[in-house]
């Protein structure tokens, strides 16, 4: 049985192709001059450069965190190139017609057509290729509603007051080692502003693609939902199959003002490396949102890629009656390692949080849930419910749970539960007795295990996530 499952897990990485796009790439290396050049390339104002440099100086003083249950060789930050852009992007194309067809083909191959006519109605896409945003679709339609959806490099120039006010307001520059690095060298990412009382007319989506070799991707996303507004945002990512490890260190900041709601969904499918652990992306990401009064932030993530994942999308429940949610599926196989979870910091009264984390470990991989639930003294009547379930496939993997529960308020209620199980022989037998082949049986059982999380994903993504799991599990049985 286990052997069968292992076989199913030895799948191909479908997004592993390299695009033949001419690029302009910095020499590897990192010092203040590199940061100056990035800022220059982006045509940034002085304050932005200063901001970056101060973060860089902080970073130099910091130490790489070692508390996560992941193991990887020391990263040589001087061996990474911090900027790479398709040549054709030098003079930014004004419309889709001017975009390098090879770039459009890349996204099409990944199943993300950027030609608006072909797009699934109701999703606007910002496509980020290596260090730059290639194209953002449906901008006119969004502008009509007053929604700003553009590359962050553009927002720095066009909406400096918003960026100045909120950039670094949720994740401080020196929050952690990778966040500080990101502050210093981030190149692009998406910026979203939803005005007061506005329901964003369509789903917003950013699609990240690392193409160039030896480059790091450091994107920065900032989403501000003003009072009473509502937005659903999707994020996807892939990278070519390369033998070297590549670094991805992103920062995402969400601000949900009073009564606003942000739904942030991620399907993370960076290249995981081969079955022997060669290559793959190091995915060190800081994601955090702040909820003001009666606001709600909901994180949903499906993590199937990356060689190493270090990621804790979190909510600061500052306002009274605010709500934080975290729904996660993390699948590791081969030699993948994932240490992921969330932090729910309850500050306001009657704040509520829900955490549903499903970990699936197969092959020789290790998956860990690491979470923190904190009830501050002022969090009267706050509630948390946490459910962490792990599924082990085979006897060479590991599944771990590290929840921190801290309460300082006697009226707060916290419930945490964790379980471990495996795909049982009985379940497999039932499925096969009904005529299902073992692969289908495993993927169906695993999908069932993840159901509570998948139902939180927007429709299109739910289908994609289900498929991704299926592909990931392909050959795990046989």
């Amino acid at each position, binding site marked *: 049985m286990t052997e069968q499952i292992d076989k199913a897990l030895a799948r191909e990485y479908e997004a592993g192709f390299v695009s033949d796009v001419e690029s302009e790439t910095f020499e590897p290396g990192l010092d203040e001059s590199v940061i100056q050049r990035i800022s220059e390339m982006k045509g940034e104002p002085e304050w932005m450069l200063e901001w970056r440099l101060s973060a860089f100086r902080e970073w130099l003083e910091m130490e790489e965190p070692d508390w996560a249950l992941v193991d990887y060789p020391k990263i040589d930050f001087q061996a990474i190139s911090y900027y790479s852009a398709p040549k054709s992007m030098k003079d930014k194309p004004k419309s889709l017609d001017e975009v390098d067809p090879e770039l459009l083909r890349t996204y099409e191959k990944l199943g993300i057509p950027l030609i608006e006519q072909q797009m699934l109605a109701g999703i606007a896409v910002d496509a980020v290729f290596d260090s730059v945003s290639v194209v953002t679709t449906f901008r006119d339609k969004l502008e009509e509603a007053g929604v700003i959806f553009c590359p962050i490099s553009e927002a720095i120039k066009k909406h400096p007051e918003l960026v100045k006010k909120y950039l670094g307001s949720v994740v401080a520059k020196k929050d952690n080692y990778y966040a500080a690095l990101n502050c210093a060298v981030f190149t692009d990412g998406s910026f979203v502003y939803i005005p007061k009382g506005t329901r964003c007319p369509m789903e917003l989506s950013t699609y990240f693609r690392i193409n160039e070799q030896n480059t790091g991707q450091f994107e920065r996303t900032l989403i501000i939902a003003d009072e009473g507004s509502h937005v659903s945002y999707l994020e996807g990512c892939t990278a070519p199959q390369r033998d070297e490890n590549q670094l991805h260190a992103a920062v995402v900041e969400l601000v949900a003002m009073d009564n606003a709601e942000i739904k942030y969904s991620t399907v993370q499918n960076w290249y995981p490396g081969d079955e022997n652990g060669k290559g793959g992306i190091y995915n060190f990401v800081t994601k955090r949102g702040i909820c003001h009064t009666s606001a709600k932030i909901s994180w949903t993530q499906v993590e199937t890629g990356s060689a190493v994942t270090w990621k804790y999308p979190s909510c600061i429940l500052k306002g009274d009656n605010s709500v934080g949610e975290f729904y996660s599926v993390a699948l590791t196989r081969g030699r993948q390692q994932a240490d992921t979870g969330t932090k729910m910091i309850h500050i306001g009264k009657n704040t509520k949080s829900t955490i549903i984390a499903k970990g699936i470990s197969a092959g020789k991989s290790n998956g860990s849930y690491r979470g923190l639930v904190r009830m501050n003294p002022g969090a009267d009547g706050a509630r948390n419910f946490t459910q962490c379930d792990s599924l082990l496939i085979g*006897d*060479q993997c590991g599944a771990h749970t590290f*929840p921190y529960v801290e309460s300082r308020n006697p009226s707060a209620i916290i419930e945490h539960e964790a379980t471990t199980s495996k795909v049982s022989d009985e379940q497999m037998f039932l499925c096969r007795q009904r005529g299902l082949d073992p692969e289908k049986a495993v993927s169906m059982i695993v999908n069932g295990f993840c159901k509570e999380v998948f139902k939180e994903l927007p429709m299109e993504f739910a289908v994609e996530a289900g498929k991704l799991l299926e592909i990931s599990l392909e050959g795990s049985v046989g």
Partner: protein
Amino acid sequence: MSEWLESAITRARGINDWLAPKRAHALELLSTTKWPTRKTEAWRYTPLRSVERSTAKVIKDVVALSPVDIAGLSAIELVFVNGKFDASQLTKILPEGLSISLGQTLENAQQAQALNAFSTIKPERHLFGLVNDALAQDVVVVSVAEGVEIAQPIRISSLLSHGAESHTRVQVSLAAGSRLAVIEDVQASGDSLNTAFVEYDVASNAYLEHYRFALQTGTNVAIGGSHFNLHDHAKMHSTIVGFGSDLSRLDTDIIHAGQFADAKLNAMYLLDGKELFDLHATVEHAMPNGTTEENVRCIVADRARAVFNGRIHIHRDAQKTLAELNNRNLLMSNTAEINTKPELEIYADDVKCAHGATVAQIDKQALYYLQTRGVSRSKAQVMLNFGFINELIDLMPNAALAEWIRPIIRERFSQMEVK
């Protein structure tokens, strides 16, 4: 490194006795150990200020202290006073098959054996365990012969007078098929500091009933550990009761070194005032077919702080393990704190492991309702919430101990204030 640790190391260097090689090893490890800070995971919630500030000193003079009487309990008494083994208080006639001796008085062969076994169950990661290795004055060796059932429990009492520093150490081994009950108790008066470590080796088919009472309160610092090694089909049942103090830290390690071992651990702590109690309970399932069940319940009032870390580690070979941890907490004031971290680390697939942790509150409305019906606040409190501690008391195998501790715990709970 702290001054306290430096001085401890210096003092330890001056000791030269039968444990010399083990002490040297501990000192070597200590010399490279960093003094814990908030960033040290094992001490994340438990600052060591009170150790750093401690003025406790080793007291050489003979002080007369004796353990409290427990009605209905007739135990074999093993008493340390300020760290010194008090031979005069040892029960004179021991049952057949039981031996209790001071390490330095053992005959050569036995001493070599005891030396070999010393500090092999207690993991090296415990900083104060290493301090104890280096500084323990008298090491007492207890053993039960094969197949022997000792009806009377052994009570190990560590008694401290004001300002005393002590480091006590006991090594217990149960040979195959034997049975033994051990009660560990620390009774200290203010400003003292002690480390008390006991290692238990439970051979195949043996059964150990274990209690650890940490009822000292106030300003003393009590750090210790109980460490268990279970062989094939060995069983243990442990009950821990803690009231906290300036700093109370207990590390337990249960190691399933054999197959089909069975471990139960019930811990309860009730903290008031500025007390702190920190329990780190680790279970290592190294072999298949083991079972572990842990229940940890805690009530915290006023400005007290409770820390719990419950780690269950299932090794690759430990298939068919059943392990469960249940942690329930009641928080009674918003200046009190509960920090709990149940952990699972699992490397085998055919296992059933689960943990649950809850933090809840005293139902203030129900409390009020009962008060309006004329029930006193403290009575109402006990009526409404004592049950969850009482359940664990009911599970104590020794009825005399249960009946002794029940009113003590009840009294403590009724004194706690809901804020």
